[in-house]
């Protein structure tokens, strides 16, 4: 079967609501809010509208759900794991940039 797909970029130009993020990630609302309150998942809290998230966050929230299920982590454990993964990601980006600057 041949299907032409709609393609959505998960970047800072697209936003999702709290409800959408719950549906897309598989996290429960209470877990998601705890991760928002602990600062691991960045949210925009608009008066009268509620939480909105950059589509970039979908990947983080899905990783959180996977770690929760695969390691049976609670939200405190998830929070630590996600912070460390984010640090690893930042360092890997930095290494990649430094490698790119080095002549071959």
């Amino acid at each position, binding site marked *: *079967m041949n299907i*032409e797909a*709609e*393609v959505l970029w998960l970047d800072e130009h697209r936003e999702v609501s709290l409800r959408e993020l719950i549906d897309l990630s598989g996290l429960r609302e209470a877990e998601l809010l705890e991760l928002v309150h602990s600062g691991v998942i960045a949210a925009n809290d608009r008066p009268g509208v509620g939480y909105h998230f950059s589509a970039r966050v979908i*990947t983080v929230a899905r990783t959180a759900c996977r770690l929760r299920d695969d*390691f049976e982590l609670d939200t405190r454990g998830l929070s630590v794991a996600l912070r460390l993964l984010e640090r690893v990601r930042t360092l890997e980006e930095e290494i990649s940039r430094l490698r790119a600057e080095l002549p*071959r």
Partner: protein
Amino acid sequence: MKYADYYAALGVERGASADEIKKAYRRLAQKHHPDVSKEEGAEARFKEIAEAYQTLKDPEKRAAYDALGSRPQGEEFRPPPDWSRQHGGAGADAGSAQFSFDDADFADLFSRFGARNGALAGEDFEVPVEISIEDAFRGTTLSLSLSMPEYDASGRVRRVPHTVKARVAPGAVDGQRLRLPGKGGKGRQGGRDGDLYLDITLKPHRLYRATGHDLFLDLPLAPWEAALGATVEVPTLSGLVSLKVPAGTSAAKKLRLAGRGLPKPRGGAGDLIAVAQIVVPGELGERERELYQQLAEISEFNPRRHFAAEGT
């Protein structure tokens, strides 16, 4: 289908206790989980481990698995004729030879256990995709061949090949994630279809090294071009452009061609950064050698002057 030895996957005996199975899973998951491990093959290894654990941690599924008997890993295999009816696995309602195990994976045998009534969302899939830097620059249409589980009304599963075409607009960078809504596994009983997530990486390039939307390029210069300055032609993704190399350019100096990197999805582009390399001829002709010798005699340039400050 091919038999999967779940006990071997977890490295436990067939008679292992539930606690031993859980401990083995945790130990292996910490080592091979794709969010944690960057080892080659980690994702496939974790999939085996998780599949084994999903079955062996559940007493009902484990009993059904054990009833299949023990065989060598990967051996061609069909469940006994009465297995589905006795254990309620996939194909339990088949009632005839119409259900073909040939279209299912081994793990699909256990997919019906614990299935609840009501809407079930389709499975999401994440697929790594490698594209070239040229494709990231121009945009590309991906053609993805996937095998997805599909369930009929009675819950019987079979793997169906799908080709998904996805247009990736210019501007993807390494690590870019894309979501294709509804292109994952089919939902059941009114549940929504799953999504397909693409994780883009850029293939290594002969000339360019990408970081974000910027591209780095080694720019070899002859010693006289670096010393005297020169205008040289530089390959960019949109063709050759002239670059003015200022006099006195040392190795590793970065010369920036603004807006000549990868395009950004909402307009603008990264830069192309040429990194100067001073290259000397491997062999010198007689006249070249004479001129270099003359230069050595008259020049007061000392590239190691700063060593002197150490006082040796």
